[in-house]
Each structure stands twice: as structure tokens, then as C-alpha cells.
């Protein structure tokens, strides 16, 4: 019935007291209790989100001049933040879609929260280019809408337009993927809720799900096809984001390595953000049995892989700049590493390339404190990567007279920190009212990958071999 799994593979659901009832209880519990810590965090981040709105209002009222942009550096923190958030928004779909296609069972513990994170990150990301337009009320014209000016259409040759399509498709497909998975779990919450109002609300959220065989059959078909569609989609989104730079003629941007390098970087930063949040969530909501050290180690392996890919990309870029013999390219890269923004490059290199190398050591991969600190480092490093690419390439222009330096204003800071607040605020709401872990999916791996199942099989095997129990079966450190 169930796929055979090696006894030496670590369990993904810990605790010998687990059964389906206990899984439901544990995973629904966070939506059923109130906590002062949650209220404090939500109010604080809510205040931050209001400040975000205030700063955007300030920008719209007084214009883009309130940001630190100048004639030379026309893209700075806005686009840095945009690419940073989009990158963070890559882990969710990667975990749900690609790991589903590769049959990685550890995805079940983290996919729901990662998908939620994706959606919130894309919301934050979208704000930056939209408000960078200046006249936000004209934003709908980024879409090819019929109009009375010609008709004047958008430029289908422009990667900026491709980005509009890529990101809006990514956002809406991520929501479909996320929500179709949530319906059965909302059904679970509905059927155990006591209050009438709570039952009514969760029934609406569940779309009246009741889990008949035909519903599940269609559910599986839908999630498989959505996974198959989202896998190229997630790769296309950051590829297209990288085209925004790669198809330009700015030295430092005009490189063919960008698409794979951006995608690897996006996965890298996305996983880091998943770790930052999940390490807190598993502790606060007592979900250590479902998001195990094994899950964290698996993610750390992806971090060391993608971090190293990004590192190779940095070095390749440097080499090619030298090898090309193209003076402007060489100048741009000299400036990147040793120019006036050398500190940003140093941050990027040490956070993204050096720090993840710690994960070659097993005890580091399995250490929660190290993982938490490193995940923050990676988040910082990936922000600096975008800053380095965007700002250092623009700052020293072709004309010496237009060389400039970018300094953020309070509005830049407010929008950036505000977007982090918006993200955390939405994530906190999600944690309180939605099941943070995909309940039905965790149940579906219970018979293969839980400690209980492994112990049962070891016992059966032991009986067959005259009382000898495989030691590895019960091993979990």
C-alpha cells in the first residue's frame, strides 16, 4: 500500500504518542488558543504596516523626490527591495511544487507556511515597482488595456512588461495552489469547532469540503498539475526579473549568467526566510515534532548548495569581466569589489558565500541556533547582493561628471522596514487563524515516515528475525 522507506531514514513526525487524532489536535491547536505574545507582535507589526502606508502616502503626495534616488542612480532601494522580496517569495512554490514532483516527503511539514510566505512576500514585492512609477493611479496601464490614446499598447518586447505578466501570474497561481490545499484543512477545523460562528466561518473558508473519494481524486489531480505548472513558472519568474537587468546595456547588468544565478539566489534567500520564520513558529506553537531537525537539515543542504551556486556565479562574473577585455565591464566590476561600495560587496560575499559553507559540517546543519543566525545572515547577504548589482553598476556612470552616491532618506527606510512589518503582520494573522502545517498532507505520510510507523515496522521485523530489532530504526539524534 505504502511506498517502502528505508529504516535508516529519519522520521519526519516525531513522538511515539502520535496518531491521526493527536496530529489533528496538535496542528489545529494554534488556531484555538489566544496568546498575549501573539497580540503584542501583531499590534507592533500592525503599527509598522501603518507606517508603511504612511510612507507610501508621503511618496505619492510629494513625489519620488522624497526617496534618495538621483539622476544617475534611478533604481536603488526600491528595486533592491522588489527583487529581494520576489526572491524570498520563491521558496514557497519551490517547496510545494518542485519537492512534490521529486517526492520529497519533508515538504509536508513546511509547505503551507512557505506558500503563505510566498504570497505575502509577493504582495510586498509588488508595492515597490508600482509606487516607483510615481503616478500610481496610472498603474493599471501596465496591462494591455484598450485605451483612447491610439490605441497605444504596451511594449511586448520589454522585459518590464514580461515581469508584469510573470509576477501577476505567479501571485495568482500561488494563491490557487495555497488555497486549494487549505480547503480540506479548514474542513478539519470546522468539524471540530464548538462555537456556531466559528463553524460557520470555517465552513465558508472550507468551501463546504467534506472529503469524499471523488473530491480527493480531483484534489490530487489538481495539485499535481498545479505543481507541474508552477515548477517552470517559479523558474520563469526570477529569470524574467533578471531580464530586467540582463537585457539592458549597462556594464555589470548585461550578462547572460543572470537567469540561473538569480534563480539560485532566489531559492537560497527563500529557504533562509522559511528557516527564520519556521524556527520561531515551531517553538512558539510547539510544533517541534512536525518540523524536526531533519527538516531543518534538509533545508540547510539546499542552502549550502544554492549558496555555493551563487558564489560560483559571483566569481564567474568577475572572471568574465576580466576575460572579456571590455574596459567598461572591467571598470564596473573593479568598482563593485573595491570601489566606494566595497562594504556592500564584502557583506554580500561573507554572508552569501562564506557563511553557508559552515553547513558542510553536519553538527552545524543540525544546530538550531546556528541555523537561525545563518538564516538571518543569508537574508542580509541577499539584500546586499541586489543592492550591489543595482546601485554599484549605476553609481559610476559612463560620464565622470555624473558619478553619484546613493544615500537613503527616511522615506526609503520607512518603506523598506514597513514592508517587513507588512510581511510579518500578514504572517502572524495567517499563523493565528489558518493551519500552519498542512494537516491532511502530514497525515498522508504518517504510515511511512513517522516515528510510530518506523517503530511498528521495526517491531514486526524484529519478530520475524527472532527478537532482533534494527538499531537504526529507532535512531534519531
Amino acid at each position, binding site marked *: 500500500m505504502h511506498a517502502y522507506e528505508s529504516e535508516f531514514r529519519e522520521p519526519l513526525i516525531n513522538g511515539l504518542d502520535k496518531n491521526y487524532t493527536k496530529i489533528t489536535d496538535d496542528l489545529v491547536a494554534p488556531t484555538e488558543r489566544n496568546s498575549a505574545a501573539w497580540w503584542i507582535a501583531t499590534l507592533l507589526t500592525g503599527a509598522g504596516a501603518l507606517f508603511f502606508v504612511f510612507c507610501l502616502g508621503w511618496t505619492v503626495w510629494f513625489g519620488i523626490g522624497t526617496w534618495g534616488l538621483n539622476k544617475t542612480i534611478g533604481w536603488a532601494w526600491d528595486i533592491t527591495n522588489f527583487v529581494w522580496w520576489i526572491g524570498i517569495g520563491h521558496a514557497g512554490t519551490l517547496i510545494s511544487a518542485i519537492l512534490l514532483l521529486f517526492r520529497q516527503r519533508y515538504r509536508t511539514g513546511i509547505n503551507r507556511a512557505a506558500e503563505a510566505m510566498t504570497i505575502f512576500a509577493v504582495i510586498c514585492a509588488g508595492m515597490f515597482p508600482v509606487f516607483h512609477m510615481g503616478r500610481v493611479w496610472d498603474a493599471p496601464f501596465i496591462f494591455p488595456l484598450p485605451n483612447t490614446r491610439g490605441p497605444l499598447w504596451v511594449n511586448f518586447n520589454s522585459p518590464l512588461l514580461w515581469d508584469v505578466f510573470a509576477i501577476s501570474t505567479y501571485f495568482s497561481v500561488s494563491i490557487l495552489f495555497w488555497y486549494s490545499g487549505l480547503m480540506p484543512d479548514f474542513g478539519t477545523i470546522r468539524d471540530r469547532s464548538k462555537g456556531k460562528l466559528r463553524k460557520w466561518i470555517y465552513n465558508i473558508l472550507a468551501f463546504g469540503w467534506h472529503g469524499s473519494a471523488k473530491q480527493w481524486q480531483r484534489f490530487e*489531480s489538481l495539485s499535481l498539475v498545479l505543481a507541474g505548472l508552477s515548477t517552470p513558472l517559479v523558474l520563469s519568474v526570477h529569470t524574467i526579473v533578471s531580464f530586467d537587468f540582463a537585457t539592458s546595456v549597462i556594464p555589470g547588468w548585461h550578462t547572460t549568467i543572470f537567469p540561473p544565478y538569480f534563480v539560485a539566489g532566489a531559492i537560497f534567500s527563500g529557504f533562509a526566510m522559511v528557516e527564520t520564520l519556521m524556527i520561531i513558529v515551531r517553538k512558539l506553537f510547539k510544533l517541534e515534532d512536525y518540523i524536526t531537525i531533519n527538516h531543518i537539515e534538509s533545508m540547510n543542504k539546499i542552502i549550502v548548495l544554492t549558496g555555493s551556486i551563487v558564489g560560483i556565479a559571483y566569481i564567474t562574473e568577475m572572471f568574465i569581466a576580466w576575460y572579456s577585455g571590455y574596459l567598461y565591464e572591467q571598470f564596473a566590476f573593479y568598482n563593485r569589489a573595491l570601489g566606494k561600495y566595497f562594504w556592500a560587496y564584502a557583506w554580500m560575499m561573507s554572508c552569501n558565500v562564506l557563511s553557508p559553507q559552515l553547513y558542510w559540517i553536519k553538527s552545524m546543519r543540525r544546530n538550531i541556533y546556528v541555523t537561525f543566525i545563518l538564516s538571518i545572515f543569508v537574508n542580509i547577504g541577499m539584500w546586499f547582493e541586489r543592492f550591489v548589482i543595482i546601485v554599484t553598476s549605476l553609481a559610476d556612470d559612463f560620464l565622470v561628471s555624473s558619478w553619484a552616491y546613493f544615500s537613503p532618506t527616511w522615506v526609503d527606510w520607512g518603506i523598506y522596514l514597513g514592508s517587513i512589518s507588512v510581511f510579518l503582520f500578514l504572517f502572524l494573522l495567517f499563523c493565528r487563524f489558518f493551519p500552519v502545517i498542512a494537516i491532511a498532507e502530514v497525515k498522508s505520510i504518517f504510515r511511512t515516515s513517522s516515528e510510530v510507523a518506523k517503530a511498528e515496522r521495526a517491531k514486526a521485523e524484529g519478530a520475524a528475525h527472532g527478537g532482533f530489532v534494527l538499531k537504526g530504526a529507532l535512531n534519531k539524534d
Partner: protein
Amino acid sequence: MSNTTLPNKFVVGLWDHEEVYLHAIEHIRHKGIEIYDSLTPFPVHGLEDALGLKETRLHTAGFFFGATGTTLALSFMTWVMTTNYPIDFGGKPYWPVPSFIPITFEMTVLFAAWGMTLTYLVRNKLWPGRVPRIYDKRTTDDRFALVFNAEKLTDAQIAEVKSLCQTEGAVEVKDKVFAEGEGL
């Protein structure tokens, strides 16, 4: 939507282990007893085979939705760039197919995903506010249920179904009666 055509009296058997449940389904179907519905807390592998369900055509629908998106995107961009508002970009071709590829791809995915999801909701009769028929509350928690239409069975047959469920390892067998027009 009226439910007057739906039967209202059922026999419900509940299992607590999916493997026992799957064997039970095979045996019960082997005896020629018709299963009205089956409810599980998660997608149980092998369930559709055990129940003899036909394969869903949802993914085929998805293909056609995707193809619609492809066609629409390509033909719209072609019309704009060659017919409606052709622009000369430094003597480059009016019909730059390579730069249509990203948007065509995104539109394909968008149409396939939305079309499939909406079809899924319609076919599964899911919408906000729908009140489903809950045969047992625990089927979204820890119980695997088989539902038999009691209106089609004689009293003797009902007793047989109940005892069969019990011998096949059901942890609970019960009657369930819905009021006329209750749920869907």
C-alpha cells in the same frame, strides 16, 4: 439547488486504519454491495482503485485551458504588433516571435491554473457557504468512512451490511438520517 433527489437514510461504517479500510472496501465490493460514498481525512493511496472510480478528466481540461491561453496570448500580441499598431523599432521585424515567448508561457500557465481550479470547484461542488452533508464529524479528523444508501436496501440487507462492516474491522457502524433538504 434542490436536494429532493438525494437519499436521506444511510448506514455509515467507520474505520480507523486506512489499510484495513482498503481491504474492507475490496471485500465489500466483491460481495456486490454498492458503496454510496467514501470519506477520508486525507487522500488515501489506492482508494480510487479499490472503489473502482473512473480516472478524473480534470488534467485533460487543464490542457485545453492552457492551450487557450497560448493561442490567445500569441494571437493578441501578433495582432497588436502587426496589424493594430505596428511600430518600427530600428528596422527590426514587426513580428518578433522570440520576445512573445515569456508572455505566452505565463498566459498558458495562468489559463491552465485558473481554468482547472474553477473546473475543480464546479465539479466538486465547492463554493463558499456550501453546507456539506457530514456523515460523521471525525471523517476530517481520524476516521475513514463508508456510506451505504439505506433507502435502497431492505432491513435484512441493512443488517448484513452492518455485520459485514464489523467483521471487516470497522470500529463503529451507525445509522445516519438527514432531514429533507439538509446539506448537499
